[in-house]
């Protein structure tokens, strides 16, 4: 379902070239739960950005459902992010001026879903992640764990096949982290592909498949 071939990414800082990914080959099956671990600077976030269509590789190709995303335009990539991928960030990254239900409905707004349908689905998703009572609260009025639940609900709003989590439990306490992981695993059981980047061995232990990165290379699969 996702296939990376000879994936390389080089960042240019003035005249210095910094390779972040070197010749990465990776295949992820539909419905798989994959954890990517590695030290900071190992290239795991860069790989995640490529897989999530947030960034383009310097060379190599990424196929998502058979389409090489490295050759797509910015707007086509936005379309893939909107329809096929749900992002969960370490910092939650909610829009501060919008309340929970509006945050969740935002990806549907960009997808052109009607207002009534958006609000209905956003409410359902918030109930699913246990925030029935917090729907009209703004992010500043929610705890870290609650904000991350809103972010998960938002990631699910366009019913994507792939969920990408960049240190999804990095900013919450361990108990909340377990609860977040439980929700993510449930999503995986529903059949969604789950890719999580973490440096926390405990979190990685939830995943049936773990890949380790160092200096922009995959160490083991």
């Amino acid at each position, binding site marked *: 379902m996702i296939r990376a071939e000879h994936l390389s990414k080089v960042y240019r800082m003035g005249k210095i070239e910094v390779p972040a990914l070197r010749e990465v080959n990776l295949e992820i099956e539909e419905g798989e739960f994959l954890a990517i671990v590695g030290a900071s600077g190992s290239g795991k976030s860069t790989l995640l950005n490529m897989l999530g269509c947030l960034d383009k590789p310097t060379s190599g190709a990424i196929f998502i459902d058979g389409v090489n995303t490295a050759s797509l335009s910015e707007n086509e990539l936005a379309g893939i992010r909107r329809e096929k991928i749900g992002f969960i960030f370490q910092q939650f990254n909610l829009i501060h001026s919008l309340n929970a239900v509006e945050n969740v409905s935002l990806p549907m707004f960009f997808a052109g879903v009607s207002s009534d349908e958006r609000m209905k689905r956003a409410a359902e998703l918030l109930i699913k992640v246990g925030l029935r009572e917090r729907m009209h609260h703004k992010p500043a009025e929610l705890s870290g764990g609650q904000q991350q639940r809103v972010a998960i609900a938002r990631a699910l709003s*366009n019913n994507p096949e792939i969920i990408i989590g960049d240190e999804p439990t990095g900013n919450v306490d361990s108990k909340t982290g377990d609860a977040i992981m439980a929700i993510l695993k449930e999503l995986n059981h529903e059949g969604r592909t789950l890719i999580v980047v973490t440096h926390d061995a405990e979190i990685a232990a939830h995943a049936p498949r773990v890949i380790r990165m160092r200096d922009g290379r995959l160490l083991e699969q």
Partner: protein
Amino acid sequence: MKDMILLAYRDINERKARTVLTILGIAVGIAAVIALISVGYGFRQSVTSELVEMGDLIMVLPGEASWGEYMELGRFNDRDLKDVERISGVQEAAAMASRAEEVEYRGERKMVNVIGVEPQDIDVIFGDIVNTEEGKGGRGLRDNDHRACQIGYSIANDYFDEEIRVNDRLNIGGKKFRVVGILEKQGGFKAGVDSGIFVTRRDAKSILGNDDISEIWVKIRNIAEAEGIADEIEERIDENHKLDDFASAMTMGSAIEQLNTVFGLLQAVLVAIASISLIVASMGIINTMLMSVMERTHEIGVMKAIGAKNRNVLSLFLVEAGLVSAAGGVLGCVLGVIGAYVICMCISTQFGMNIPAMVQPGVMLGGLGVAVLVGILSGLYPAGKASKMSPVEAVRYE
């Protein structure tokens, strides 16, 4: 679109103080333009409507005249007046001899315009609205008056330290005159009446030392013939003086035309000056929007990460700029209307001219449209900048 407006509104709401200042910036610009246009229309209307009332009059001057510029080439004489009276279509012709003369009242000396005119002709020239002030106003001039004068309202009340009353004595050009009447306040196009002293032509001759006529006013029977009669008047007088283009006969129609040109120009200049504030306001919008884009870089990254296209981000910021400027436009319309009325009130109390504030819906709509246009144009650069951000870099930005 409704959702986009709602989304933009939420963002604007987060930055109230800055938004209010930006809105005020636009509002002041639009208000200035609307107020000046409205007062200008009112001014034009009040002057031309007075001239329209005087549509059956032709003013004849000995010189080349166009409004705003006049070069006197000499004086008329009684022969000219008689020739004009004989032209068919002319109902009456009135002669005026005027010159600034030294006038002394209780030891105080001032230069005042002294106008010599046959008493029955005052009506021809100024219409029948020129009356003596009720009660204390005295009477009008009479044919057989000798060394008597009728004075304008301002002369009686404002010119000299002490108020001039009926039966007071004035020394005009070294000769003693008795005030027989004080005229009502005129203002507007007839403001000249307020600052003049009227004597019979016989007395004017004794003050001015000659029988010259400085202007002739002609009342015609049919307004439609005005232009033709004016041409004939010029021809006859030019013939008398053996000069080309000596007399200028001005119908009120041509006066209105010339006034409109002058007013149009004046208004264009004023609006151009007021427009500078709009340019400043547009820079305010650019500044506010650029700051907003910078502050929200991370948010823009998040929106793109969750699937917003460049177009979505662009329209979000453009709608925001449009909303802010539309609010400025609406406020500007309200302030502009209030401003127009205040300016007219000030003109009325300061200069005694009654000018209506003519606020036209079209001008207000135009103001609103210009505000939104300025807002959207100013928002283009910041919005374009926001839309082109790379999602991965924007998300990382803190």
